[in-house]
């Protein structure tokens, strides 16, 4: 029986080795639906390679690529200088798609609210505690705001969504930057913590007078009400794929592609948006895998991006795409 099992195991291993190359990746949960679709479609383009992606979180993705246990990583937040210094080789950040974070709330009658950065920051700092506060009323003339307590709901788990949101709040509020800061996990000054986008959405739905933040894709799919935000140009913008792509197009993007696109200067840009990255080594260890990986990256930045909109992700604008494709050409294998 044991001999039979060993023989069977050998046959199975042979089948995988001869048939396909396996490329492993791990990291961010935000782009996971899109990446799955990419791997699925790419299998039709090139059947000789199979991708395996574990959405264990951006932190896990960064750790695994540093430890070289995966061939590529994925992260919703850029790797810090400290972490990059720990890497055995140079790691490239490849921006793939962008998403937005929206402010959702639960008010009787579901009015369409307008908010701006400093007001949102003060709400989440606990400085604005009532819905009918003068500053909220000032931005929303004509809306009947109740004399009710504002209950803040934030994420209890570390997440790229929280990173983008706290990045925005740090940019628009000196107070926030000094007391709380930007990170996937922060010490929230006030409010309840809920796990995941579904936790925040559930909490906000069940608690009248509450306010929280979720991913745009999630808000769309669950038909949650969310506020219009005043962007850096002073115009109130609704979150959408167009306004996120506009933010990407007008953001300042440095050479190493580690950038923040919150409060982008464009007229039609939505202020709370962020991009997600794939993390790959510039010098690939395995030439065969490296070649397949580069081919996949090229496909994803050209054909793959066309699939993004259908899943509620904002694709990269042409100007950035050119730069990214040029960067992919520098990967050596």
């Amino acid at each position: 029986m044991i001999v039979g099992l060993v023989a069977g195991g050998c046959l199975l291993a042979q089948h995988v080795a001869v048939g396909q190359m396996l490329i492993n990746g791990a990291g961010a949960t935000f782009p996971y639906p899109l990446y799955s679709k990419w791997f699925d479609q790419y299998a039709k383009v090139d059947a000789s390679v199979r991708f395996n992606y574990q959405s264990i979180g951006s932190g896990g993705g960064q750790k695994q690529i540093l430890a070289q246990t995966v061939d590529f990583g994925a992260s919703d937040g850029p790797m810090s200088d400290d972490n990059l210094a720990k890497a055995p080789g140079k790691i490239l950040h490849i921006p793939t798609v962008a998403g937005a974070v929206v402010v959702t709330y639960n008010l009787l009658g579901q009015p369409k609210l307008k908010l701006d950065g400093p007001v949102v920051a003060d709400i989440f700092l606990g400085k604005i505690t009532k819905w009918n506060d003068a500053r909220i009323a000032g931005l929303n003339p004509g809306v009947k705001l109740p004399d009710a307590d504002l209950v803040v709901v934030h994420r209890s788990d570390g997440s790229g969504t929280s990173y983008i949101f706290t990045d925005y709040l740090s940019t628009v509020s000196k107070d926030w930057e000094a007391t709380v800061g930007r990170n996937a996990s922060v010490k929230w000054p006030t409010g309840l913590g809920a796990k995941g986008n579904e936790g925040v959405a559930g909490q906000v739905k069940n608690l009248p007078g509450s306010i929280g933040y979720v991913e745009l894709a999630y808000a769309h799919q669950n038909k949650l009400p969310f506020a219009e935000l005043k962007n850096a140009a002073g115009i109130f913008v609704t979150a959408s794929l167009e306004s996120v792509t506009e933010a990407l197009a007008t953001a300042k993007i440095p050479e190493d592609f580690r950038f923040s696109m919150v409060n982008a200067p464009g007229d039609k840009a939505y202020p709370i948006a962020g991009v997600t990255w794939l993390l790959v080594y510039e010098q690939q260890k395995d030439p065969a895998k490296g070649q397949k990986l580069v081919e996949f990256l090229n496909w994803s930045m050209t054909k793959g991006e066309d699939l993004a909109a259908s899943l509620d992700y904002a694709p990269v604008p042409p100007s950035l795409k050119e730069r990214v494709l040029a960067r992919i050409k520098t990967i050596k294998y």
Partner: protein
Amino acid sequence: MDGQLVSSHPLRRASGNLARRAVGDRVFQWLTLVMAVSVFVLIILIGYELAHGSHLALRKFGWRFLTSSNWDPVNEQYGALPFIFGTLVSSGLALAIAVPLSIATAVYLTEIAPHWLRQVLTLFIELLAAVPSVILGFWGMYIMVPFLSANVFPHLQKLLGFLPLFRGPSYGPCMLSGGIILAIMVVPIITSVSREILRSVPGLQREAAFALGATRWEVTRIAVLSYAKKGLFGAVILGLGRALGETMAVTMVIGNTPQIGASLLSPGYTMASAIANEFTEATTDVYLSALFELGLVLLGVTVLVNALAQLLLKTFAGRSVKPQN
């Protein structure tokens, strides 16, 4: 032919069997010893791995980790006191609610219920134990918490609002909700084990009490409950073990706010919830190490509580068991 005669002799066969059985016995003994020791070794290994993973945080914070209330990943300051408080309070609440309920149910099932009802009730209680933690968490978040915050908490505040335990604004997710959901998870365990313990009380004890003229309740109290005190205590400790480590259901209803307060209606945070929430996105080494240390503290708290329980057991319950002369 000669060989056949010799080996077919019954005594010869028996002694051959005996020799084989002795070897078999020794192997069995050895195997079971290995199994028992491996459980012990596993716990030691877990403790070692946790200590190894947390040495960065141990070195950086020392005892401050246990006394500070500041959990700040941005400034890399980690203090676990609110989590320790949350774990102990939510588990304590869970036991306070579950123990009377479970023991009463167990007593009803063994002493009072008609036979047909026992099977049905036991089935339902075991079904409750089989509900996965996440499902219970979703039910808690979407159904129990809104119900409690609309119908129960306002009355609690009106009646008992003078106590610091029930003061302050209540939004639904709070320490009390966490305690209640833990109680729901812990009731089946304590009930099942208590039922077994009570069933194993010899009938002679009850008959003796009846013979002395005790009423139904006195029989239960004197003959059954005091006899089974040790076992019941063990059942409670089993339940406590589950309550201390429970993660998913609690994190969905407790509000996940690391704070220490007197009010049961304010949100809290437990150690297990914190680890589950923050582990995947811990990008720096110190952060990860702090979470490992939180795990080590949780292990330590569990061991400590169990040890205290055993100590209590020896001091109090030991007296009730009188040696037979």
